[in-house]
């Protein structure tokens, strides 16, 4: 399901003295099955852009085409668009609102007016997918969940709608390392096994570098880079100048290079870094 963003601009509080433009003439196209990372400093417009991608924001200027449907079109079925483009919010507390886990996850399918058995089935599957135990947690009070469990429940609530595109807004923030790794593994699997398009917003460059195939960098409401992950992280100085931290491995390799080691630039994850460093060490030894 392709998504097309054409000349999109957006202002908050339009028509008031507090009006502030946050997106400037954005053009993007995201194809089916892609894994796209969106990065940028805080308040750069990432979330606003992402919320245009499932018609939570309707453009005033420019347009967004989701599977060919213009979200601006008064006749467009926005509800079906929002079911097909799932959105996981930055803070699960804003997303979970039903009293129990089961009810919350069933909220989406319930709104799709599916038959009862189908809803139950989807809830069970979604809980299994994110690793929440159906028996013990189905009737659990939402507020009795831990931070990590809340995240999972939030993701499950979206997965139960069977989206073809998943927009994830900084979903690993505030998780411990293990919880983080589990969520990331889940996202990778959704992309690989079910071929769901993933739009992954994150403030952690390490995560984006190791997950995304393509990266869109946003600064002050403008797309300043849109390229393959490796190409984007090769532009170290530019990224630094807008205040983004680089993936730790990239920084390490960069430091080794400037210290005179002969290494190729742009390693994106630990495994790659290990490979290039061992290769370089072997070469040095061979020369001796």
């Amino acid at each position, binding site marked *: 399901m392709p998504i097309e963003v054409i000349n999109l601009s957006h202002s908050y509080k339009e028509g008031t*003295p507090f009006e502030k433009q946050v997106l400037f003439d954005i053009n993007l196209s995201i194809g089916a099955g892609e894994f796209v990372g969106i990065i940028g400093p805080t308040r750069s417009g990432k979330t606003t852009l992402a*919320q245009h991608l499932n018609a939570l924001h309707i453009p005033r200027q420019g347009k967004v085409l989701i599977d060919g449907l213009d979200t601006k079109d008064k006749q467009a079925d926005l509800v079906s668009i929002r079911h097909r483009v799932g959105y996981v919010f930055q803070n699960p507390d804003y997303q979970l609102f039903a009293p129990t886990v089961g009810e919350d996850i069933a909220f989406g399918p319930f709104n799709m007016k599916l038959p009862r058995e189908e809803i139950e089935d989807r809830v069970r599957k979604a809980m299994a997918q994110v690793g929440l135990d159906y028996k013990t947690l189905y009737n659990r009070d939402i507020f009795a969940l831990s931070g990590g469990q809340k995240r999972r429940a939030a993701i499950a609530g979206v997965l139960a709608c069977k989206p073809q595109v998943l927009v994830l807004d900084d979903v690993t923030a505030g998780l411990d390392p293990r919880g983080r790794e589990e969520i990331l593994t889940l996202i990778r699997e959704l992309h690989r096994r079910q071929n769901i398009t993933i739009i992954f917003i994150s403030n952690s460059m390490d995560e984006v570098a190791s997950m995304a195939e393509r990266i869109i960098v946003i600064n002050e409401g403008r797309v300043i880079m849109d390229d393959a992950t490796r190409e984007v992280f090769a532009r170290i100085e530019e990224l630094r100048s807008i205040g983004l931290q680089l993936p730790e491995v990239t920084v390490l390799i960069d430091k080794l290079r400037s210290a005179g080691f002969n290494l190729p630039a742009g390693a994106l994850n630990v495994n790659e870094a290990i490979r290039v460093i061992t290769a370089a060490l072997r070469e040095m030894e061979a020369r001796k």
Partner: protein
Amino acid sequence: MELTKNITLGVYLPGRSFIHNLDPRTKILAAAGIIVLLLFTRSYSAFALSAIFIGALVSLSGIPTGYALRGLKPMLPVLAIMWVFQLFLFKTPDATVYFHWWIFEATDAGLHMGNLIILRVLFLFTVTTFLTLTTSVVSLTDGLESLLKPLRMIGLPSQELVMTLVIALRFVLILAEELEKIIKAQMARGVAFDRGNFIQKTRKIFPVFLPLFIGAFKRAEELIVAMDARSYTGGKGRTKMKTLHMGRADFMAALILLAYGGLLIFIIISTKPMI
């Protein structure tokens, strides 16, 4: 989907106008005075004078008129319902009947009563909004505290009261933001808040309130912890970094208000009330 756009009550719009620079006590007393006068206003000509006066104040403050009135927009449906109720249910024995429908009668008395109530609400809302638009939370607090200080002697915890009031005012905007987030979360999973007629939209609002209230309680608890962490102990022994001073501008403002008040009272006495 932007709710906060239409909320102006409790919002402060910084500026350097004559009105912005007045002592907050002057502004609070003025607003209170204008509101009391409004409660006695019962004729169209007196309302017209108030409208001109308040309009002049707004333009003097440099706040865009459209923005000062924007907060009324979400209230319009409620006001319309109030007006219809008055039109059909308020009656006087000598009223002229416009038309009958089943057991309801629309009379001229009802029409004027409806108008009176709506005008009062509009003016009350505009005056209070105008006060918060031109006065920052800090000076509003200082002003109110200073005005209520004499009541301490009879045991009224004035500082605490003002604190509560100011927090309530602040929460208007915070709750609206929270509401927006909850609505978005429900929209994302298939509730069409932006589609349907007035009744359909109203019905969809109910499931939003539970999480909103839970969120509000959580926020309140966090606020308590934050206040405790900074050793808030109430008003006793507190000193001020900024002390308030009344100046020539405040004197002038008082004169203008007295002139307005006198003229308004004259009009109220000398004209025929609408009902």
